[in-house]
Every structure is written in structure tokens, then in C-alpha cells.
């Protein structure tokens, strides 16, 4: 059974690019526009990995990671931050919140798939 990945990004184009790369590799994909939207969509879902942007409206990525980690079902679900953010401070905050990896945009699909495969097999 294919693993399900949640993509959280306010940019429709980034959501599409990540979706296509992941679907091509055999993953199931769910998308959300921001952290708040993502938390709503996570309820009752079996999600194996989350890819989240950092700078988003309504709820930013780091707050979202912290909130997701509070949920028992998502305590051990790996989260990759996919962002244009280059500040080390933000990277440290994401790590402290519970993120497992930090990928900077613009990314190549192969890089993303390699990072995903390290954390969850297809």
C-alpha cells in the first residue's frame, strides 16, 4: 500500500510540483494551504510524512510542526521543512519544534525524493 504524504504550502505551484514528483514515485498525496488547513485535514488520516513550508499565512510552518507534534498520532511522523528561508535561526526553531529535515527552494524533484526516501519508503 502506497505511503501518504501531506504537503503544506501556500503556493499552489509548489504544491503541484511536489505532488507530481511524489505521485510519480508512487506516493499518495494530500495538500493543504497552510498550517491551520493542514491540522484540519490530518484528523482521521493515516499520514506517513509531512512536507511543510515555513512562511505561510494563518499558521506558519514552525508553529504547525509544534502543533502537529502535540497530536499523539503524529508524534513520530517525520516532517520535512521545504522553504525559501535561509536563516539559521529559523532552521534551529524548526529542529526544536520536531522537524527532521530542512530543504531549501528551489528544489530538484530528485533531491526531494531522496530526502523523502530517507525518512519513509514508498
Amino acid at each position, binding site marked *: 500500500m502506497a505511503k501518504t504524504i501531506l504537503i503544506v504550502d501556500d503556493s*499552489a*505551484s509548489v504544491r*503541484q*510540483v511536489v505532488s507530481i514528483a511524489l505521485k510519480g514515485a508512487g506516493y499518495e498525496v494530500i495538500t493543504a494551504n497552510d498550517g491551520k488547513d493542514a491540522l484540519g485535514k490530518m484528523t482521521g488520516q493515516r499520514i506517513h510524512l509531512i512536507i511543510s513550508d515555513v512562511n505561510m499565512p494563518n499558521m506558519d510552518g514552525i508553529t504547525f510542526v509544534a502543533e502537529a507534534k502535540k497530536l499523539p498520532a503524529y508524534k513520530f511522523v517525520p516532517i520535512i521543512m521545504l*522553504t525559501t528561508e*535561509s536563516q539559521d535561526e529559523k532552521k534551529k526553531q524548526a529542529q526544536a519544534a520536531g522537524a527532521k*529535515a530542512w530543504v*531549501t527552494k528551489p528544489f530538484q524533484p530528485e*533531491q526531494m525524493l531522496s530526502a523523502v526516501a530517507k525518512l519513509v519508503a514508498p
Partner: protein
Amino acid sequence: MAEVLIAAVALAVGAGAGYLLRGRRDTARPGTAAVPPPEVQSQDLARFAGAVTPVWSAQIDSSRTQMETAVGQLTETFAGIVENLDTVLSSTGVLGEGPGGVFDRSRERLGEVVGTLDSALTGKREALAELHSLLSLNEELREMSGEVTRIASQTNLLALNAAIEAQRIGEAGAAFGVVASEVRQLADRSQNTSVRMVEKVDKVAQAIAGVLATQEAGAETEGTAVAHAHGEVQAVLDDLMSMLATMRQSSQGLEQAAVGIRGEISDSLVNLQFQDRVNQMLEHLRDNIGRFPDVAAAAAAGAAPLDAQVLLDELAARYTMAEEHDAHQSGSAAKVNESEITFF
């Protein structure tokens, strides 16, 4: 598109700066019109900023929104094409089946049909062989009946001789004469029965021969039909094989083309990530421009000096991308950095 937009904004900001510089040059130039005092210049600048920056911000927002919508639609369309190509690619797999594919399944099924016909024909030939065997047994029965007739005839002759001898003996042979007479009657009946048996055997032989003739003729026709069916099935399979080979070749060509197109579209989609970065850059610029009237107003009111560094620092504080910092420091377009992955 993004570079043009940013250049336009820079040009507009440059025009504003030019306005201020011109004012300063005018102040220094002797013999020109009276130059307003600095506090009036500051108020002019505040008014200028209040008038132009909302328009600049609106234009940036409009461009940003248009770009976001257009790129969003473009990515959606591309994503739809990729999805359709994936569907096409997964369906062409039917033709791409190997030895266990459509052809082999068809051959197996047709083989079963012909095999059934073969079995029926073999059964019929075995039945015919049994009939031939029955005919041989019938002939043996006929011979045996002939033997019985001969034995009856000899018995009759023997009984006749016994009767003559009994009569020659006279009174003493009377009883023996009766026995001889009975034996002759039995011999006659045996002979009659044997004759009837031969008649029946001949009738049975005729019936078997008739059935044999009919069935042998039918078996020959059926044998020809089965052989023809074998040939037809092989011809159909050859045609099917040829057609499948052509379709498979064509399908492989289409599949390769579809894979190529999918790859190109995926690459194009990757490049469309620029929208996300440019969108953020424009947001930072718009917000910073939006702060210009406040800073100018504060300077006009004498609350703070008109210091460009204030706005520049605020702008720098909003940067998220390394290229924004690079462009800020170098004053020229910065190269987009390669993606980096850090595992925690």
C-alpha cells in the same frame, strides 16, 4: 517577468530619489527660484510619499496577483497533462505484456477448443476400431455356427446308422432304435438352430458394416474439418501475433514519447517555483514601500531624521532568501542558490 517587475519598482523608487536630489541640487544652485526651507521640503516629501507609494504598492500587488494566478493555472494545466500521461502510460502496459500476455492467452484458449475437437475425433476412431473388432468376432461366431451345423449333420448320419443297426438286430435293438431316432431329431433341431444363427450373425454383420461405413465416412470428414480448424487457428494466431507486434511497436513509440513529454513538463514545473520566491520578494518590497510615507511623515514632523537606513534595515529584516541579502548588499541581481538539504 519578475526581473522586469522588480526593475520597474526600482525605477520608480529611483524617480522618487531623483525628485529629492533635484530639490537638493536646486537648493545649491545660485540664481534659481527660491528654495523652500528644509521643513517644507520634508513636508513635500511626506506628501509625495503618501501620494505615490500606495500606487506603487497597488501595482506590485496587482502584478504579484496576476503572476500567482497565471503560474497557478499553468501548473494546474501541466499537472493535468502529467496526470493524463500517467493514465496513458499505465494503460499501454496491456499491449506491452510479455509471454503471458493477450496473445498467449488467446493461443491457449483456441488450443483448448481444437484439443476438444481432437479428443472427440480420437474417441470416434476408437469406437470405429471397436466396431471392426466386433465384426471380427461376428465372423468367428459365423464359423462356429458352421461347425455346429457340420457336427449336427454328422450326428444325424451317426443316428441313422444306429437306427439301421437297431432294426437289423430286431426285437433286442428296438429300444436302441428309439434312442437313435431321438438323437436324429436333436441333430435336426441343432442344424436348424445353427442355420438360424448364421442368418442372425449375417444380419448383425451387415448392420455393423453399415454403421462402420457411415461412421468412417463421418470420421474422415471430421478429421478434415479438425485439420482445417488447426490451420485456421494457426492463421488467426499468426495474424493476431503480427497485429500485436505492430501495436506493441507503435505503443512503445507512444510510450517513449509520453515519458519524454512527462519529463519535460516536470522540468518546466520545477522552473515555475520562481513564482513562490518572486512573490515573497515582491511582498517584502511592497511592505517596505508601504512604510515609506510613515518614515517621511515622521521626518516632516521632526520626530525622526529622514534616514534611508531605517527602511533598508526593515527591508533586510524581512528577507528570507539568501539571494535577497546578496542583492541588498551588492546592489545588483543575485544568483539563486542551489537547493540544500539538512537532516536533523
